[in-house]
């Protein structure tokens, strides 16, 4: 595996091979240089702490949304405390608009698995867990097959490659709860309990799964580990920017001409990504704003995006975050009041009901927004939404309540006049229907013309 040259949106760690019907298999992954990082670690007898050191030196930031340095998270775990340590891959990708882990699980499951094995090696884990979103069918089957292949090839199980290191992986399917993507709720769900987040302290790296030190990492974070180990931290740092090394998988949807999953090198121009790589807005409409990384991140208007690059520092300076990489492009003419209501309906539906401010506040905010959309809004409703959001900020167990507040207040900050108009007039500023075209329709028709009698491109690719 060698670091690829800069092409398109920058260098690519994952999306650097043609996807075929069997490009996800062990043989194909090995053909691309897979499991060399693991072989390197096991054959050279690299110490677990050296693996952590390498990951820390690479400066990789967590790809789940919070951008916490992965190496620092691993470094907290005391390796010689005599307790079992667990590593969990967080594949419960539930942030609205985010579907980049899905691509990784479907197409490079072995890369994710190799990362998990390396992380378990670094943290002296004997058991590792993959908590996969229940709705993910193909990703689950691909990961299940990958684990079976890995066991058969001696990459998992007792005494891996004769190194004395043993690891068993448990693949666990979630049951459809957004909050189970929060690390502590995920562990509670893994334990068979209700998916309720846990209070800190204690931190999960002190008392996590089954009250043992546990590291929970996002799929993409773990998938980066083989690259870091194989190529070395120094080479990894050369990709991306100084503060955000590496690449970011971005799933873009919304009113964009070419939605889908992209791999973007950190530091890439945001506007160039939207207008060139993704083909601009559907129907040539103007961009109104983007939700940069899942609905929990604050929106950025088209003006705010000017000159911003896709990396953590630049996004922070612009007033938002890269988040989970789930980008949603919103075209001019979209009613932000109704958008806020859709977002809030999601948070209301997904609030776990454990702690008071979020349990009650999410429903309250949705009812206020609902009333505005019904045309029965009152001028004081805007202040009420701010009030509920601030009362949720930092007062809840997990960050679901805060996130909902950020999402709604960011829309209010940017488009307050749309709310005032809606409340005053009982109707939206943007009553016209938004003309959107199916971006796939044309290419699908072309494909069918070229493949007479075939069912669909995905079926032909062996996806089902």
């Amino acid at each position, binding site marked *: 595996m060698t670091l690829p040259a800069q092409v398109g949106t920058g260098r690519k760690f994952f999306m650097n091979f043609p996807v075929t019907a069997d490009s996800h298999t062990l043989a194909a992954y090995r053909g691309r240089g897979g499991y060399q990082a693991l072989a390197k670690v096991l054959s050279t007898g690299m110490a677990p702490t050296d693996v952590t050191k390498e990951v820390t030196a690479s400066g990789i930031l967590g790809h789940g949304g919070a951008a916490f340095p992965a190496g620092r998270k691993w470094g907290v775990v005391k390796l010689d405390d005599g307790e079992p340590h667990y590593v969990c891959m967080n594949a419960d990708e539930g942030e609205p608009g985010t579907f980049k882990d899905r691509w990784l699980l479907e197409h490079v499951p072995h890369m994710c698995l190799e990362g998990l094995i390396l992380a378990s090696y670094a943290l002296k884990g004997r058991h590792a867990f993959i908590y996969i979103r229940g709705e993910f069918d193909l990703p689950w089957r691909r990961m299940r097959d990958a684990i079976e292949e890995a066991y058969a090839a001696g990459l998992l199980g007792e005494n891996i490659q004769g190194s004395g290191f043993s690891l068993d992986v448990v693949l666990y399917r979630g049951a459809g709860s957004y909050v189970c993507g929060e690390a502590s709720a995920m562990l509670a769900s893994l334990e068979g309990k209700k998916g309720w987040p846990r209070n800190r302290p204690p931190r999960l790296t002190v008392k996590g799964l089954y009250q043992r030190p546990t590291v929970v990492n996002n799929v993409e974070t773990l998938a980066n580990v083989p690259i870091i180990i194989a190529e070395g931290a120094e080479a990894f740092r050369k990709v991306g920017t100084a503060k955000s090394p590496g690449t970011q998988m971005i799933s873009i949807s919304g009113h964009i001409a070419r939605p889908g999953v992209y791999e973007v090198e950190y530091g890439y121009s945001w506007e160039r990504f939207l207008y060139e790589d993704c083909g601009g807005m559907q129907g040539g409409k103007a961009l109104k704003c983007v939700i940069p990384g899942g609905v929990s991140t604050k929106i950025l208007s088209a003006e705010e995006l000017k000159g911003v690059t896709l990396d953590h520092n630049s996004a922070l300076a612009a007033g938002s975050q890269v988040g989970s990489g789930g980008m949603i492009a919103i075209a001019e003419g979209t009613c932000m009041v109704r958008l806020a209501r859709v977002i809030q309906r999601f948070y209301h539906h997904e609030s776990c009901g454990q702690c008071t401010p979020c349990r009650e506040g999410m429903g309250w905010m949705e009812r206020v927004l609902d009333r505005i959309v019904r045309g029965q809004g009152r001028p004081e409703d805007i202040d009420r939404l701010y009030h509920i959001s601030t*009362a949720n900020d930092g007062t809840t167990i997990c960050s679901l309540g805060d996130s909902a507040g950020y999402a709604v207040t960011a829309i209010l900050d940017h488009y307050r006049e749309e709310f005032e108009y809606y409340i005053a007039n009982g109707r939206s500023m943007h009553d016209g229907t938004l003309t959107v075209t199916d971006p796939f329709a044309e290419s699908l028709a072309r494909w069918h013309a070229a493949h007479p009698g075939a069912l669909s491109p995905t079926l032909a690719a062996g996806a089902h």
Partner: protein
Amino acid sequence: MSERKTIDFFINGEPAVAYDGETVIQAARRAGVDIPHFCWHPELSVPGNCRICMVEVEQEKGDPWFDIGCNMPVTAGMRVLTESETVKKLRRDTMQFITLNHPVDCGICSKSGECTLQDYHYEHNGRPSLSIDRKNHATKFYPLSDRIMLDNERCIMCTRCVRFTHEVSQSKALAAVHRGDQALIRPAEDANFNTDAYSDNVIDICPVGALLSRKDLSNARVWYTESTPSVCPGCARGCTIDIWHRKASWKFTALDPQLNTRIERVTPRETPEVNGPWICNKARDLSALLERPRAMEALVAGRPVPTPEAVVQAAALLAGAQRPLVLVSSWASNEELAAFQSAFGERLGRSLTAVVKADHQPQPGEVEEDAILIVADKNPNTRGAMALFPAWDGTIPPATDLVVVWGEGGMAAALPAGLPVIRMSGYAASDNAEAAVFLPLSIQIERDGSYTNIDGVVNSFRGYLTKAPAVLHAIDLFPSLAAAQPPVLTGRAS
């Protein structure tokens, strides 16, 4: 006990001391600072879900730090503020959230008057709801078990009840289902709350009126009743309890007079070394034990006679007996036992034998014994009585010419036919009429006294009812019984 490490810190500027490992809310409680809390309970785990116990921690530099006091370990020198303006604002906001979907139906709620939510509303909020939207509706009067009903609208999802069944009563019978503001407390599918012998404790720990006793539902408003400290006689654990009864100032004059004296309900009175804050359901149903039909008049050979006359007859029988055997009650208070010992001190061990009998045996269907509170001996003062007298082996010594049965038990069938018997008891029983002399005694709620529990802890109880004139207090009776003199009848003794 080993010395616990202490940590010095500050609450609201005042120096305070915490034990190592204590949280802010625990240390503050001992320092006399009350941090409001719904979900936290000293005997249960910390869920940190109600968020009302937010406190401020001043930082050396930078912004203060806010977090819940129930999950915040005390660190040396930390400066905690529990009444800062921001903390008060956070509490007000949290109270708004808690009451958002709460029906605020205090007027018809049985918890009204002793409700934490009500108290906190006046103390920490005081504003009407800021919401103008409809409230969520949920199940009313959901039967969690034969004993307890749940009002899901009043529930604030503190999960104290769920944790109680997991951590204390071990029945694991309750759970939280659904998400968000649709979350509900429900019985767990694979457990049975009906068989939880401690289920009624969830009523006490519920900070709102969501969990209520079906037996006591709407019996009496809290402010019409008052409590008297007492000791549960249901078993030798001797749990300390409060017996609730109607206040003298709120007596009914027109209705059934029984309503003025009946036991409205029984709640635990916290005693760490005996029962902590819990009691079992048998104690809740103490009225079934104490309000059984009473023996209200003295009998000689089954015929009612004035009490003094019966006492004279009994004293004469005792004085004439060469080898009387006294079966001492294990329901007698320590004071009564002492009065017996001093009255019969000269004869005891020489011509008179006193042995302790078990008044009550476990009833069918009752939990006989468990690892929590309930013990197999169903008598409250066996240990107190055994400190003075040996246990009865169930036999009657051959030379015995008179048996005195004090308290219940000691059935006629167990005694040799033809042997004269004196019975003294508070309750009506068919054996009473078969005795040569029967003397009616007062019961626990009519007199003060104390019991020694199975671990040797002495707990006292108070009487709140006046005994009937024909009924005797045992401590008044014994001197006259020993001296063969008519008793001095008092309305209230000891």
